[in-house]
């Protein structure tokens, strides 16, 4: 798939037809596109989505690709920001059969490839799980044995994206949830942000030399990357993807 990416090609807007939408949580929706000339992608890359109003005004937003590489198929999962310009439309209005403009795949740095065999530490805040899910799915599809750990920070149990699928893969990928607002009944610790103790207890130690991927709202990414550095991880082994302002 990576090998099919054409170099030096002008990145033009492609038309994607919505073949499926499904709600992941009350605030998040997955949109599946059929994109006829899709050149293929690598886990961690994103697309730009352009919406154009009848008066010509247009808005472009980036969304991580959620699916493992599959011919002509691009999935995104959008979490609604209530006062946002684009995400309410994508999570409430878009329906099967709609056509949207997409540009991609974009990014070649925040990526995981099946040829990588080192331990992997994934840290997600809120919607930051999306590109990390693409990595988990790509790992499964490629039958990779790379040891993966995921630390996933969410507001409450109801906001977990891909909950059923994560339960499925927890046999194979070590998954820890960190709840920031509300914890499930009987949860051993009170809600709170990821801290040094959580990083020490639930992530690879520095001597395992993991490749770390941290994704989510900008302040979350800043603090999680700082915690990893403080725990002794090589700064060069920490890759980040910032989604923007607040939330998660």
């Amino acid at each position: 798939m990576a090998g099919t990416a054409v170099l030096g090609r002008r990145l033009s807007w492609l038309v994607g037809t919505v073949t499926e939408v499904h709600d992941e949580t009350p605030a998040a929706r997955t949109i599946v596109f059929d994109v006829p000339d899709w050149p293929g992608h690598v886990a961690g890359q994103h697309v730009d989505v352009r919406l154009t109003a009848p008066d010509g005004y247009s808005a472009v937003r980036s969304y991580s690709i959620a699916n493992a590489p599959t011919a002509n198929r691009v999935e995104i999962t959008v979490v609604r920001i209530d006062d946002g310009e684009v995400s309410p439309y994508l999570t409430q209005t878009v329906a099967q059969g709609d056509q949207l403009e997409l540009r991609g795949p974009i990014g070649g740095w925040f990526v995981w490839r099946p040829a990588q065999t080192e331990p992997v530490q994934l840290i997600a805040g809120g919607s930051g799980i999306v590109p990390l899910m693409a990595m988990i799915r790509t790992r499964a599809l490629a039958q990779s044995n790379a040891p993966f750990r995921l630390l996933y920070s969410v507001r409450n149990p109801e906001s977990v994206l891909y909950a059923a699928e994560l339960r499925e893969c927890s046999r194979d990928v070590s998954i820890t949830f960190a709840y920031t607002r509300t914890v499930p009944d009987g949860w051993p610790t009170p809600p709170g942000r990821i801290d040094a103790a959580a990083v020490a207890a639930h992530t690879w130690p520095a001597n395992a030399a993991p490749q770390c991927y941290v994704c989510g709202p900008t302040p979350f990414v800043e603090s999680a990357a700082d915690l990893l550095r403080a725990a002794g991880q090589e700064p060069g082994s920490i890759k980040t993807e910032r989604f923007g302002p607040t939330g998660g």
Partner: protein
Amino acid sequence: MDRSAQTFLDGNAAAGELRDIFVLELSTATTQCASCGKIAAFAEARVYGMEPGLIARCSGCENPLMRVVKSSGRVWLDLRGLQFLEVPTSSV
């Protein structure tokens, strides 16, 4: 305004926008800051703003590496903060 309190994105987030100017993907490009000499992937730069213009700053010293402004059918590109930009030509 305290810049560190502002929110920013990664060079990665600007890579789509920059494909309007460059045919190659810039997130894996290597940059050297003309101010502090830091060598880093363009993906590690801190990107502020997007519309109508974006500015990519060095993650070491906040020096502007690249400024891009789009307006009335033109793009302005200011690269004076870069010592060099090395772009891989092998596949992404």
